[in-house]
C-alpha cells in the first residue's frame, strides 16, 4: 500500500456500534480491503477528506482504518490482538495520529469500558457517540458535554446510519490532527492501588522493544496492564517477548499467592469509575418504551412464528441462489459459448485456437458464472445483517448449531452450500472467530451443491430402474436420499472436526440483538461489490489457472496411434456416403477421434495410473478420467464421460445416447461396468469427494494459504474413497 504520507485515524469500538457504517460514511467508496498480516481478518483502510474543499483551503485528508470490533483490548489470540496493535502502531501497523472510539449511546456503560482502556494508552483520542437517533426508542438520554467532561476528551454525538453529526466529527478529527491534545492524567481515569502500581512497574521494566521510543511511564504502565490482563500460560498471542511473558507470569503467581484476583480487581476498578460517573451523563426512563422494534421481536423470536419466519426467510435466500440466479448464469454461459464460437470462427483451426476457446474463454466463463450467486447471497447477507435479523436468527438457531459445534451464524453458509460451495465459503465471514469460520468452510463442500445435480441425474437415470417403492418413485427417492446423505455427512464432519482438528478453547458466545434498522444502500452496494471484486481478483485467478491446467492435462499429448488410425479412415468415410449421411458419419468420426485423444492424453494416462486405486470402488480408468475432468466443476463429469465414450462433448445428463453407451460398457471379464452398485458407489463418491477446483480456490482465499484447502481435499477424498470402498466391497460380497 504505497501511498503518500497522510495522517492516520483508527476507528475502534465494540461490535455492533455502527463502526463500519461510519467508516463507509467517512471514506465513501474509496476503501481498500486487505488482510492483517498472518491472519485472515479483513483490514479496511480508506482515504477520507475532513473539510469541504474550496479554491483557498487545501483539502485535509487522512487515512481511516476500521479496526475489527472488540469488547476489550485484553486479548488471548492474534486476532484479538489486532486492536491494541492498530492503536499503538505495533507489528506492521501504522502508528495512528488519532484514535476515534465509536461508542453505542444506547449501551453506553459497556462501551465506556473499552473507551477507558483506549484512553489509558495516552494517545490523542476522541469519542464518536453513535446511535443518537436510537436513544429515544431505548428510553435513554445522554449528555455529550457531561461525558466529555468526565472522560477528558472531545465527545461528538453522531448518527452514522442517518449521516448526522458527521461534519462535526470530521472537524473534531481535523482539530486533533492539527493540534493533538492529550487527555488529562495521560488518560488514566482510575488510580491503580499501590500494589497494582508496583505490579505494573515490575512488568513495565521488561517491555523491552515493546516499549516504543518516547513512551511515557504512564503509557508504559498501560501496556504493562495490557500484558498483565492478556498473557497467561495458554494464550495464543504473537510476538510477546519471552522476558515480558516471564515477568507477567511471575507477577500473576505472586498475586495469586497473596490471595489477590488481579483480573477482577482491574475490571471492577474500571467499572467502578463508570458507575460512579454515569449519573452525570446518562439517564434512563424507568419504563423502557414499547417500540415497534420490540413488538416485531416478540413475533420474530416467538417459539412458533419465529421459526416459521426463519424458514420463510431462509427459503427465500435459498430460492434466490438456486432459481433467481439462473437467468443470469444462463446469460453468462450463453455469452461465453457465443464468444467461444465466434473466436473459433475467426481463428484458424488448431491447437492455439483450442487453447483460446476451451482453455481461456471457457476458463474465464467458469469464473464469471459464480458472480450472480455471490452478488445475490451477499445482498441478502447485507440486508439480514444491517436490519438486525441475522442476530435474531443466530439467537433462534444457536442451540441447534451449538450441539454440532457450529456457530449460530453458520446456517447461512450451510444453506448456501446447497446452491454452491463458493459463495457459501465466502459467507463464513459473518462469524468473528477463526475456528468457527474454518470449521464451517471445511464442511460446507459436503452439502449437495447444484453442480452435483447433473451427475446424480445421469447416474440415477442410467443405472437405476424406473419404479416405485411404497408408491413413491424410486429415482426421486434416491435423489432425495442423496441430499439428506450430504447434509448428514456435513453435520457429522462438523461434529468430528470440531472435536479434533479444529478443537479450540471454549469462548463465551456473545450476541447482541440490536434494534431493527433500515439497511443503508451505500454500505450494501459496497459490501457486495467488494466481495465480488475480492472473488474475481483472488479466487478467480486460481480458478482460471486451474481450468487451464485441467484443459491442458485433458488435451496433451495430442497424437497417438489410435488417433492416427482413426484419422486414416476419414477419406473412406467421406467417400462412402454424401449429404446428411456423410455429415453424420463425419460427426461420429470426430467424436471417436476426440475420445481417442482424451484416452491417450495425460489425463487418460492418469486415469490408467489411478485405476488400481479406484478399482476397489468399482470404477475403471475411464471413470477415473471423468473424475479428473470433474475437478473443473462437478457437472463437467457428464461431458467428459461423453468424450471418453466417443459420443461427443455436447451430451447432457438426460442424453439417451450417453446412457445407452454407459450400459453397454464392459469390463475385461465381460461383466458390465455400470450396475446399480457401481452407480451407488459413484453417487457416494460424488457426494463426499471435493471434486471442485473453485471450492479449493475459495478456501485458499479465505484462509490465506494452501494448508486448509489441501486438508479439505485430503479429508473429503479419503472419506469418499472409504465410503465407496465399503459400498462396493460389501455390495459385491452380498452378490449385488
Amino acid at each position: 500500500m504505497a501511498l503518500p504520507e497522510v495522517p492516520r485515524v483508527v476507528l475502534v469500538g465494540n461490535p455492533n456500534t455502527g463502526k463500519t457504517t461510519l467508516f463507509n460514511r467517512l471514506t465513501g467508496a474509496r476503501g481498500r480491503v486487505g488482510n492483517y498480516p498472518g491472519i485472515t481478518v479483513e483490514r479496511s483502510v480508506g482515504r477520507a477528506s475532513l473539510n469541504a474543499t474550496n479554491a483557498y483551503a487545501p483539502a485535509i485528508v487522512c487515512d481511516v482504518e476500521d479496526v475489527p470490533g472488540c469488547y476489550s483490548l485484553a486479548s488471548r489470540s492474534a486476532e484479538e490482538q489486532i486492536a491494541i496493535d492498530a492503536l499503538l502502531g505495533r507489528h506492521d501497523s501504522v502508528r495512528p495520529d488519532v484514535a476515534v472510539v465509536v461508542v453505542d449511546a444506547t449501551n453506553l456503560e459497556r462501551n465506556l469500558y473499552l473507551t477507558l482502556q483506549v484512553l489509558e494508552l495516552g494517545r490523542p483520542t476522541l469519542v464518536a457517540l453513535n446511535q443518537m437517533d436510537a436513544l429515544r426508542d431505548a428510553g435513554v438520554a445522554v449528555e455529550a458535554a457531561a461525558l466529555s467532561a468526565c472522560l477528558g476528551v472531545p465527545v461528538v454525538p453522531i448518527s452514522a446510519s442517518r449521516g448526522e453529526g458527521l461534519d462535526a466529527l470530521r472537524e473534531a478529527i481535523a482539530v486533533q490532527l492539527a493540534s493533538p491534545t492529550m487527555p488529562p492524567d495521560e488518560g488514566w481515569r482510575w488510580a491503580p492501588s499501590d500494589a497494582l502500581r508496583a505490579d505494573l512497574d515490575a512488568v513495565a521494566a521488561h517491555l523491552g522493544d515493546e516499549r516504543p521510543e518516547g513512551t511515557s511511564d504512564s503509557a508504559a504502565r498501560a501496556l504493562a496492564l495490557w500484558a498483565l490482563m492478556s498473557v497467561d500460560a495458554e494464550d495464543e498471542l504473537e510476538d510477546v517477548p519471552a522476558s515480558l511473558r516471564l515477568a507477567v507470569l511471575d507477577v500473576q503467581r505472586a498475586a495469586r499467592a497473596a490471595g489477590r484476583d488481579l483480573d477482577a480487581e482491574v475490571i471492577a476498578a474500571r467499572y467502578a469509575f463508570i458507575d460512579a460517573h454515569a449519573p452525570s451523563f446518562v439517564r434512563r426512563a424507568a419504563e423502557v418504551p414499547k417500540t415497534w422494534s420490540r413488538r416485531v421481536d416478540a413475533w420474530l423470536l416467538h417459539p412458533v412464528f419465529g421459526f416459521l419466519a426463519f424458514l420463510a426467510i431462509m427459503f427465500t435466500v435459498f430460492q434466490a441462489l438456486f432459481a433467481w440466479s439462473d437467468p443470469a448464469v444462463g446469460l453468462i454461459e450463453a455469452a461465453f459459448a457465443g464468444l467461444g464460437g465466434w473466436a473459433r470462427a475467426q481463428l484458424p483451426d488448431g491447437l492455439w485456437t483450442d487453447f483460446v476457446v476451451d482453455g481461456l474463454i471457457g476458463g474465464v466463463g467458469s469464473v464469471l458464472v459464480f458472480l450472480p450467486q455471490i452478488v445475490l447471497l451477499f445482498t441478502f447477507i447485507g440486508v439480514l445483517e444491517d436490519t438486525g435479523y441475522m442476530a435474531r436468527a443466530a439467537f433462534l438457531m444457536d442451540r441447534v448449531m451449538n450441539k454440532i459445534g457450529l456457530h449460530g451464524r453458520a446456517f447461512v453458509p450451510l444453506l448456501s452450500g446447497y446452491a454452491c460451495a463458493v459463495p457459501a465459503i465466502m459467507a463464513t465471514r459473518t462469524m468473528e472467530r477463526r475456528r468457527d469460520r474454518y470449521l464451517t468452510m471445511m464442511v460446507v463442500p459436503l452439502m449437495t451443491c447444484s453442480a452435483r445435480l447433473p451427475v446424480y441425474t445421469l447416474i440415477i437415470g442410467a443405472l437405476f430402474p424406473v419404479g416405485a417403492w411404497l408408491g413413491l418413485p424410486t429415482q426421486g427417492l434416491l435423489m432425495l436420499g442423496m441430499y439428506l446423505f450430504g447434509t448428514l455427512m456435513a453435520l457429522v464432519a462438523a461434529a468430528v472436526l470440531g472435536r479434533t482438528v479444529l478443537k479450540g478453547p471454549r469462548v463465551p458466545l456473545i450476541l447482541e440483538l440490536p434494534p431493527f434498522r433500515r439497511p443503508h444502500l451505500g454500505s450494501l452496494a459496497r459490501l457486495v461489490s467488494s466481495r465480488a471484486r475480492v472473488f474475481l481478483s483472488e479466487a478467480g485467478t486460481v480458478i482460471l489457472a486451474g481450468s487451464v491446467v485441467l484443459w491442458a492435462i485433458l488435451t496433451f499429448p495430442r497424437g497417438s496411434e489410435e488417433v492416427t488410425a482413426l484419422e486414416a479412415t476419414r477419406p473412406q468415410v467421406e467417400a462412402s456416403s454424401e449429404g446428411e449421411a456423410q455429415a453424420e458419419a463425419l460427426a461420429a468420426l470426430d467424436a471417436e477421434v476426440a475420445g481417442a485423444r482424451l484416452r491417450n492424453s495425460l489425463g487418460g494416462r492418469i486415469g490408467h495410473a489411478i485405476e488400481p486405486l479406484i478399482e476397489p470402488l468399482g470404477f475403471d480408468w475411464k471413470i477415473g478420467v471423468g473424475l479428473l475432468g470433474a475437478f473443473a466443476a462437478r457437472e463437467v463429469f457428464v461431458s467428459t464421460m461423453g468424450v471418453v465414450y466417443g459420443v461427443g462433448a455436447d451430451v447432457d445428463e438426460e442424453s439417451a445416447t450417453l446412457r445407452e453407451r454407459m450400459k453397454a460398457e464392459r469390463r475385461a471379464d465381460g461383466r458390465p461396468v455400470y450396475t446399480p452398485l457401481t452407480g451407488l458407489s459413484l453417487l457416494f463418491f460424488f457426494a463426499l469427494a471435493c471434486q471442485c477446483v473453485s471450492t479449493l480456490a475459495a478456501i485458499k482465499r479465505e484462509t490465506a494459504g494452501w494448508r486448509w484447502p489441501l486438508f479439505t481435499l485430503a479429508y473429503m477424498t479419503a472419506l469418499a474413497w472409504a465410503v465407496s470402498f465399503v459400498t462396493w466391497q460389501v455390495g459385491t460380497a452380498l452378490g449385488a
Partner: protein
Amino acid sequence: MSPPTVADLRPDQSGTVARVGGERAFRRRLMELGLVPGTPVTLLKVAPLGDPLELEVRGGRISIRRRDAASVELEP
C-alpha cells in the same frame, strides 16, 4: 447447595452478581461485559429453544449461552 446463578433466573427476574467462575480468558470476558461482583443483572428473554439468554446489565443488553451464564453466581 450450590449458589444460584444467572442461568437460574426466570424472565424479568433480577439478581446481583456475587462471583464469576470458570477458566481465565472466559471469566475475564464475562466480567468485561459488565458482570462484575455487585452488579444487578436481569434476565430479559430466553431463546425459544431455551438457549441463549438475553440479559440486561447496566442498561445494556447482551445475550450469552446458558452454560456460560451458569458460571456467574448470584448473591443468595
